[in-house]
């Protein structure tokens, strides 16, 4: 589905990503874990075309997208749920969702939008209840659902999520992550960037550990969860302090 090879990018003279190579197969949930500033968000922004890749290749569905503008990438089926939701607060829930359907209208598939909206409301009944409410008045968890709903309206093949759990209460995080697994069950492919490594690895198939712009580890979620360096640095467990068992 997505294959990235030796991607480098950054801001101005600052190189954030250094030869990042990774892939996602269709139907997988893959997570990228790493500390603040490791380059996780930059990686998603690079894939979605928001910042240009300086070198390397990004193949989406076997098409090179490294030089494409963001809207073309969305048209091809690769959507981003950005960090901090980025909703239009003064607009209603429904209007926000419909904005996500913009590519569908451009593809002259406007007639499908009604069905899609029904499907999304099926997935997020809470949003139907609040469809006339202004987005800015929603709770954090609801805003995150709205951001996901908006991305889904473009019917993406790959949905990339940047820190969906950020600022949410543990119970709400559970809700959001169960939505992610549900999306996968329905045939979506998910690239999940998270600081909450434990929750992310709990639902992911595989993961990559990004450290100062470089991938230092790759493996199944199970392997990463049992790696002691990952446990210490990202899961907040200190096995030495916990004793032997």
């Amino acid at each position, binding site marked *: 589905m997505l*294959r990235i090879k*030796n991607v480098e990018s950054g801001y101005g003279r600052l190189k954030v990503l250094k*030869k990042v190579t990774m892939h996602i197969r269709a139907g997988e949930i893959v997570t990228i874990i790493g500390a603040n500033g490791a380059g996780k968000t930059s990686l998603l922004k690079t894939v979605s075309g928001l910042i240009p890749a300086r070198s*390397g290749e990004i193949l989406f569905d076997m098409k090179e997208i490294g030089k494409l503008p963001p809207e073309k990438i969305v048209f091809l089926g690769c959507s981003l749920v950005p960090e901090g939701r980025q909703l239009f607060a003064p607009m209603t829930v429904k209007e926000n969702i419909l904005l996500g359907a913009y590519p569908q209208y451009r593809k002259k598939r406007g007639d499908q939008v009604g069905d899609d909206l029904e499907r999304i409301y099926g997935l997020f009944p809470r949003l139907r209840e609040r469809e006339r409410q202004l987005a800015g008045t929603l709770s954090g968890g609801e805003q995150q659902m709205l951001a996901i709903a908006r991305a889904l309206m473009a019917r993406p093949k790959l949905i990339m999520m940047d820190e969906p759990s950020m600022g949410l209460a543990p119970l709400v995080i559970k809700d959001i992550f169960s939505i992610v697994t549900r999306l996968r069950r329905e045939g979506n492919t998910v690239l999940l960037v998270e600081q909450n490594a434990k929750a992310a690895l709990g639902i992911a198939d595989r993961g990559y550990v990004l450290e100062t712009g470089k*991938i230092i580890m*790759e493996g199944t979620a199970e*392997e990463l969860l049992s*790696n*002691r360096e990952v446990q210490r640095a990202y899961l907040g467990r200190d096995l030495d302090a916990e004793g032997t068992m």
Partner: protein
Amino acid sequence: MYWEPDKECMDREELEQLQLERLQSTLNRVYAHVPFYRKKFDALGISPEEIGSLSDLPRLPFTTKEDVKGNYPYGLFAVPLREVVRIHASSGTTETSSVVGYTRNDITMWSKLVARILVAGGVTKDDVVQVSFRYGLFTGGFGLHYGAERLGASVIPASSGNTARQIQIMKDFKTTALVSTPSYAMLVADTIREMGIPVSALSLKYGLFGGEPWSEKMRDEIQNALGIVATDNYGLSEVIGPGVSGECFERNGLHINEDHFLVEIIDPKTYQPVPPGQTGELVITTLTKEAFPMVRYRTRDLTRLQAGDCPCGRTGRRMSRLAGRTDEMLIIRGMKVSPAKIESLLFEIEGQEPNYRIVIDRKGAMDEVTVLVEANGEPQFGEERRHVGRTVETIRKRLTHELGVTVDVKLVEKKALEPIDGKAKRVIDNRKL
């Protein structure tokens, strides 16, 4: 039958993507955590960030057995010792052995790779597997043990030695798969014959042999004598132990577990890659090991990569069975003599797998080579003895002619050349050089 079909039958392009990802993350880790590699990379002016393709591999430095020994015991470990759950060492005296470590993930991964090899060799969870590799620091015993257990087979940790007792166990416990060195399998076959136990009294079906090179002829003998399918598998402590590669039922080359090991074949003299399909030294880079990653380890084993797909469906490229070792060339009176060459000549003359030992002494300034060849039958007298004498003379002339070095040949009694430490000891060099 496969153990991990999605990995063992992965398509090439997907595999190469995975290999590159894993190579880059391995290099990032060794550069950050192993001073030996950081110094070596820095000295060559190369940073892991410059490796953007599998074809960049030759830009990285080699690692040799001397490097491993020079960092004895823990210098090449990439994780703190508290993360290491197992330590093994290669053969050799304490000061000269290679010490290797495994994290919990490494052990899991290793077990899975060995399980792949066992499955390729016919073993299922319903088999009774007798592991007759030596248990201990040597990776063979524990490596196969954990793999067979992972697979769900019933494992008998018989270890090596006490052959009569092993055969008793084999018979009573209804062992279906024997795991050992090929020379130990030969010893088992001989002992069964001597004890007068018919093969039909055993339940053996499969034999998985490794730890030393062995010929096709030897395979035939073992297969016939024990009534089994015998497959070859390969590995070495510095890289992981058993589990690097193994044969499937086709018995035509060993499938390399390429999602975990990156292989190159180089010319041991020029260090350049050999043309595709040519024999050269096997060089291995580990892609997933945590505790003891290896970058371009020179195995000193000679092999080649076979072209073409295998009917079994596994896509891991096949390496041919070992053609000898680069460091096993003996220099005798200035001439290079390969023990493998002696073995193949003996085989040609005798028409069967020879049990032999090459002994080198220095008398004054002269090297003297004696090839001890084990007799097939009982000692002979009279006319037959003269026939044996003629055979010995034939061997002597042929070896001397082909090797360009005068060689003495002596016939020794059957069983005089017992394996040492479970491995056939082929060369004894008594020269003090």
